[in-house]
């Protein structure tokens, strides 16, 4: 379980997050939604300890990740898989070595076992043949899928997705959404999805937290979201309805 308690953060005097509290339960998929610049990515970076809060704390399974030593933090981080916005594949290595990277560094598996595991992860994202290719030879969507394979290689307990569908065509987006759903179901991981793509959120998330002006303005289940009368939340969801069609949004829970 991940708990964010009264977290505040400002950059050069400008507040980005103010008194944010959030709980992500074991096994659920939590979406953090909000407009660009609302502090979603900043919140996500606090959860894995890439940023230090000005006030408040982040607890992973009860441990305050900013109060432990760097080496302890690294051990906690090994339970996380993070899919970055641009994939963040190491461009000096081919796709296979990217996926193999965490296995080579954090396990004592033999090369043959690593090979099996990498091919399994690449097949899971439906890219079994891209191993020898460099990231620059792959399309944006393929890079993200390879990055997802890398994020799950060590079978993490938590997977964080930073804008998993941004900049992708609708079909690739759907593929990614399916993958996220399947991973949550098959591996029973706890997922955090940072996104402004409501279409994707409605398909994959159990609960959502809406960041507005650096605060959690609204949070609840997707069902509750459909019934909510909150002005700002409705504005945000409606803007998405306009983009993707009302029918899709309304019928999304039947996906």
């Amino acid at each position: 379980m991940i708990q964010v308690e009264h977290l505040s953060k400002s950059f050069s005097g400008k507040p980005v997050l103010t008194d944010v509290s959030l709980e992500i339960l074991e096994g659920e998929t939590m979406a953090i939604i909000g407009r660009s610049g609302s502090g979603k990515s900043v919140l996500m970076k606090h959860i894995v300890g890439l940023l230090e809060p000005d006030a408040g704390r982040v607890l992973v399974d009860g441990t305050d990740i900013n109060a432990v030593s760097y080496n302890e933090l690294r051990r906690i981080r090994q339970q996380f898989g993070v899919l970055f916005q641009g994939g963040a594949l190491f461009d000096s290595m081919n796709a296979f070595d990217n996926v193999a990277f965490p296995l080579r560094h954090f396990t004592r598996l033999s090369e043959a076992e690593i090979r099996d595991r990498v091919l399994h992860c690449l097949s899971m994202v439906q890219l079994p043949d891209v191993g020898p290719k460099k990231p620059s030879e792959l399309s944006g969507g393929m890079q993200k899928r390879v990055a997802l394979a890398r994020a799950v290689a060590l079978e993490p307990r938590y997977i964080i997705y930073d804008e998993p569908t941004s900049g992708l065509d609708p079909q690739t987006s759907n593929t990614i959404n399916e993958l996220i759903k399947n991973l949550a179901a098959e591996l029973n991981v706890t997922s955090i999805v940072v996104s402004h793509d409501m279409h994707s959120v409605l398909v994959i998330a159990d609960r959502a937290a809406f960041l507005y002006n650096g605060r959690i303005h609204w949070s609840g289940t997707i069902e509750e979201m459909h019934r909510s009368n909150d002005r700002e939340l409705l504005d945000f969801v409606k803007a998405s309805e306009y983009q993707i069609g009302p029918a899709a949004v309304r019928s999304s829970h039947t996906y």
Partner: protein
Amino acid sequence: MPDALTRFLQPIDAFGRYVLLMAHAFRSVGEFRSYRTNLVEQMVRIGIDSIPIVALAAAFSGAVTTVQTAYQLVSPFIPRSIIGSIVAPSMILELGAVVTGFILAGRVGARISAELGTMRVTEQIDALEVMGLNSVGYLILPRVIAGVLMFPALYVLACFVGIGGGMLVAELGGFLSVGEFVQGARDFFQPFDPVFGVIKSLVFGFLITSIACFKGYFTAGGAEGVGRSTTQAAVLSCVFILVADLVLAYTLL
């Protein structure tokens, strides 16, 4: 006024972060398993790959020093072997290390800083960190160690090639024979000179790689930021080479 104060404190702040980064890097020295592959790769890229350009620059500086020394020594009362006595120590004391330093500031410093800067802005460094890897130990330490190990080797090479270039021009240009050159070089040889040169090259190797790593690691602001870091890394390395050169000469000679 706070603005002026901030600007005044900026270099101090940067120096503080630089020292902390290097301390972090050297604390990770024990995690050899995580950076050994990188170390070998960096030694090849910093050392072996730099041999042609360093050798070229050294040969030319040795040759030019020879020609110009010959040009300045016109008196018939001065033996021609003096040219060797001037060119060889110049190479060993100053040119071998400084010419190599300037070339590597551009070649190695800019590359390291652009590479790490790109990794920073494309979140590859964040990706390393959240996997649970120590990104400073994994990326910075092998580069700095490779610089400190390979730089003295390149310096020694530069000295040999530079003095060789001087001899060649002396002989072919008809200034003095190789025998006279070697005689002159031997007459005034001080055993401490090459030791001093090796110390200098160790310091230069550390400065160039560590400054480039610092600038690259803390890059912000996309492609423009990478460009800025790269330029600053090359310029700062050159400035600090000059400063360190004077400080070392003053304290050790």
